[in-house]
């Protein structure tokens, strides 16, 4: 199958060429707005009323898909090409039982009878590793978890025995451990069924394990195509290189190899620069050459294609790691102390006996997947909700049950937060400057208008935003810029402790690095303590001093970042680490997979919460008894029934192969 396509009057995708052999898994990677989803929808001929393929061909098994009649297209969609979508919950009909949605496929495409279709559906559910198939067949989509829903979407796609499978970011909306399981499943299915796959993702590292060839897209164009191994070992295009450098790696210490940010952001479809689209952000840009004319795709040996005029001549320097200038502060006295903090909603507990310390000037990472309770801890600290029992002391002030409305002004000023969603974090009706100024005025830092404005400008400069942004409204800013304003706003009052709740999770990889770097800089300069909440362990490796791992409301491991990333591991930490996709070809990763789905939070097991998924489970003990907390080093604690010796003898997850 081969095609080249231009789509939409606003050129979203330009000069796109791709060839897919039978049985090949091909990855398509790019950031938001690069047009990769458009490619998939174009193949399916579902571009909506505004989208159009303006030129080129889409050849599937020799026939151009754009020229098919309505009936032929329907039959192709039913039996030849299938698609898996990003949001599984939205992609399933909420008023129709799963069984009926599944059996529709063989019934209408192959004319199977109802019982035969049903049998096929049940078999497929087993194949995608879903147990309890009878219950699932009768269930409605909202009664299942995200991972289960996505497996059903996969089952639905496979029921039509397609020759080509399109996967549009199938795991983006899922937790890391669930994601790893689904990626494995897709890998095994492609091997078994022998179909071609086009796997679209924004995560380059994820594609390394399942795809044989990878295409990198930027601003609607292909910038590089190569065999997977070749791409990771020796990328030819500056964008690919910089993308790899901007991705946090879990094997690297934060001071040894810091994240390199790509400055700027991807251009909008109607504002693409002349010549190379990546030019303005490229470190190897040469004025006069790179912005003169459109850059063609150059084919090199081994099927490695690159869209760069300077590909062959750039000497990729391996620059020495930038050492952090500025003092690395030694952590001071305990700034925040949580002891046995519990928050329950009736029978369901969001947090159970959470205890940890945070010392002044430290960066502490609170890590966990959805349902771990980490956001609840943040909300309790900020006073947006109150704990049911336990204590959280900021210095002398007890916060756990003190709503923010009743806190002394000094405490409110000392404790500020950066929120997750950049689109909601700023009030759309006020200008940027007004919002930062409000903080300064509320906390009585300055009163004089001129001084306030000066301080606003100072803060904006600190987060590397231009001064005119102060008079703009949030809608005119990008996601990354909004988060930077959020950082400026949080630090405007000289807080003592800043809680950052997944501040970069909604941003593109290249933008993430910038924002994280800024955050770390500001924190270092002002000596603020930072509580960084995240689900991204790789990112945490780069910026945290200490790590606290949470699962279903409980703290299951805590320690310094080196201690947590090396054995002894709590089995859940082990699974989390094993789920991180690795981009560095010199690193191998051991395989650990917990069993498929977590039980519902409303009926948790009496003992260890992780016991139902744990591979090391001791029957009769782990489900029933609370695991003891073992201390392996001062400050490194693991809550597990396994004997200390067995934990210490665990193999490390990551091994760096010295070349």
């Amino acid at each position, binding site marked *: 199958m081969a095609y080249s396509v231009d789509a939409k009057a606003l050129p979203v995708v330009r000069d796109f060429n791709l060839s897919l052999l039978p049985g090949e898994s091909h990855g398509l990677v790019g950031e938001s707005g690069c047009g990769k989803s458009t490619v998939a929808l174009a193949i399916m001929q579902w571009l909506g009323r505004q989208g159009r393929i303006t030129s080129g061909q889409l050849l599937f098994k020799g026939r151009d898909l754009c020229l098919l009649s309505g009936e032929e297209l329907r039959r192709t969609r039913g039996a030849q090409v299938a698609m898996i979508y990003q949001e599984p919950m939205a992609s399933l009909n909420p008023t129709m039982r799963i069984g009926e949605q599944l059996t529709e496929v063989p019934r209408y495409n192959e004319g199977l009878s109802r019982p035969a279709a049903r049998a096929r559906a049940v078999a497929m559910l087993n194949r995608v590793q879903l147990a309890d198939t009878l219950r699932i067949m009768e269930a409605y989509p909202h009664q299942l978890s995200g991972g289960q829903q996505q497996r059903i979407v996969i089952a639905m796609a496979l029921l039509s025995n397609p020759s080509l499978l399109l996967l549009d970011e199938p795991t983006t909306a899922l937790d890391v451990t669930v994601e790893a399981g689904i990626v494995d499943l897709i890998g095994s299915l492609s091997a078994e069924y022998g179909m071609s796959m086009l796997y679209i993702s924004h995560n380059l590292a994820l594609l390394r394990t399942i795809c044989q060839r990878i295409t990198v897209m930027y601003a609607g164009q292909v910038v590089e195509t190569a065999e997977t191994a070749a791409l990771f070992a020796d990328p030819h295009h500056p964008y690919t290189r910089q993308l790899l450098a901007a991705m946090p790696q879990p094997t690297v210490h934060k001071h040894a190899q810091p994240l390199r940010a790509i400055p700027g952001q991807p251009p909008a479809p109607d504002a693409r620069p002349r010549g190379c689209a990546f030019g303005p952000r490229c470190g190897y840009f040469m004025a006069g050459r790179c912005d003169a004319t459109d850059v063609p795709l150059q084919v090199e040996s081994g099927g490695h294609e690159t869209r760069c005029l300077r590909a062959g001549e750039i000497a990729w320097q391996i620059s020495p790691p930038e050492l952090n200038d500025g003092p690395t502060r030694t952590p001071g006295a305990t700034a925040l102390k949580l002891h046995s903090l519990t928050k329950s909603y009736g029978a369901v507990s969001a947090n159970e006996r959470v205890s940890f310390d945070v010392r002044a000037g430290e960066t502490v990472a609170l890590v966990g997947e959805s349902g771990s309770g980490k956001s609840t801890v943040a909300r309790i600290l*900020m*006073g947006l909700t109150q704990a049911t029992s336990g204590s959280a002391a900021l210095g002398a002030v007890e916060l756990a049950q003190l709503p*923010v409305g009743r806190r002394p*002004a000094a405490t409110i000023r000392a*404790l500020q937060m950066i929120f997750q969603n950049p689109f909601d974090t700023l*009030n759309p009706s006020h200008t940027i400057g007004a919002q930062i100024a409000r*903080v300064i005025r*509320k906390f009585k830092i300055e009163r004089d208008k001129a001084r306030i404005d000066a301080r606003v400008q100072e803060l904006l400069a600190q987060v590397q935003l231009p001064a005119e942004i102060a008079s703009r409204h949030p809608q005119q800013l990008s996601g990354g810029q909004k988060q930077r304003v959020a950082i400026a706003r949080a630090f405007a009052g000289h807080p003592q402790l800043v809680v950052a709740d997944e501040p970069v999770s909604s941003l593109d990889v290249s933008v993430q690095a910038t924002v994280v770097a800024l955050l770390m800089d500001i924190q270092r300069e002002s000596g603020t303590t930072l509580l960084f909440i995240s689900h991204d362990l790789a990112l945490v490796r780069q910026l945290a001093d200490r790590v606290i791992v949470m699962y279903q409301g409980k703290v299951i491991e805590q320690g310094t970042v080196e201690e947590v990333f090396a054995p002894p591991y709590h089995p859940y930490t082990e699974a989390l680490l094993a789920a991180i996709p690795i981009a560095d070809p010199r690193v191998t990763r051991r395989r650990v997979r917990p069993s498929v789905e977590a039980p519902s939070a409303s009926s948790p097991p009496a003992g260890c919460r992780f016991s139902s998924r744990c591979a090391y489970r001791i029957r009769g003990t782990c489900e029933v008894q609370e695991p003891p907390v073992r201390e392996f080093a001062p400050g490194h604690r693991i809550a597990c029934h396994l004997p200390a010796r067995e934990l210490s003898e665990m193999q490390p997850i990551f091994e760096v192969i010295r070349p």
Partner: protein
Amino acid sequence: MSTVLRTQGMVARALVRPGRWATLLVLLVWVPLIAYVMFRSALGGAASDVLLPAVPAVVGLYALGLARCRGSWVASVGLTLVCFWFLIAVAVPYLPLTDPDKPIAALALPGTTKHGVHFILGSDARGRDMLSRTLWGCQRVLVWGITATAAAYAVGVVLGLLGGYLGSWCDDVVSFIGNLLLSFPVMVLFILILNLLGQSGFNIVIAVTSSSAPMIMRIVRGLTLEAKNRDYIHAAQTRGEHPLWVMGVELLPNVRGPLIVDACLRLGYTTVAITTLTFLGLGLQPPDPDWGLMIKEGATAALLWKYSYLITIPALSVSSLILGFNMIADGMRELSGRS
């Protein structure tokens, strides 16, 4: 209940910011109109001068509105209809019209001349000029319509914000009162209130507020509940801002958009209500000209084809006004959907 939210015309997220000029112009139109209609006796001789500044203000508003509605022909046509009637309402004292209350010649057909007066739209059963009555009639409808809607909004928005933001018992009380009022069919409520309090413009305002405010309150409450969980509200709360500040400064500007679309629709409903009430004899009193009254008088007079102009003219007038409001609302929804 979410059904109710969706029921309220699927209110769209209109990103409409009424500028400062627009607000000023609106006031320049509304205040003189109110003064003229409600306090004419107090003003005496100066009455006709009061409306002078309102005339250019309406033209100004029309120009501003047209610029804003550029993308949607529906909104533009609607705006034209509405501004036409507004212009008539403010300019009618300066137009060369016969006295609307003076009986001249009964049941003159449109286009005929009787007693030396040319009746372009005919005359009614009592001999009064139809054209004059129609044009004068729109004043009262507009003034009381806008006042009643504004009052309903004031009450509804405040209660909705309080109930939605403060939650717990405040929400329970506000919702219960709202549900209670909504469980009376609108006409029944009007009949009760107007019989209880007597018939006057102010009582109509009270009646309309009682029936509309609960609906507005539900919409605002729904919008507030949704906006309450936005992070910028949390940011304000963690700054220690007072709840009144959060409601007024952080929340209110962001619920304005859908409310403006609803306001246009509601102006339409209120106009219907006022006209219907006058028709039923429960509204504003004769002899002042009013469309509902004209329909009532015409419907009880001779019901013949050749006299049908008596009821057709006011019916078409009121329909065109409401159509204008509805088209503006639809057009704005369309515009916001596109942006």
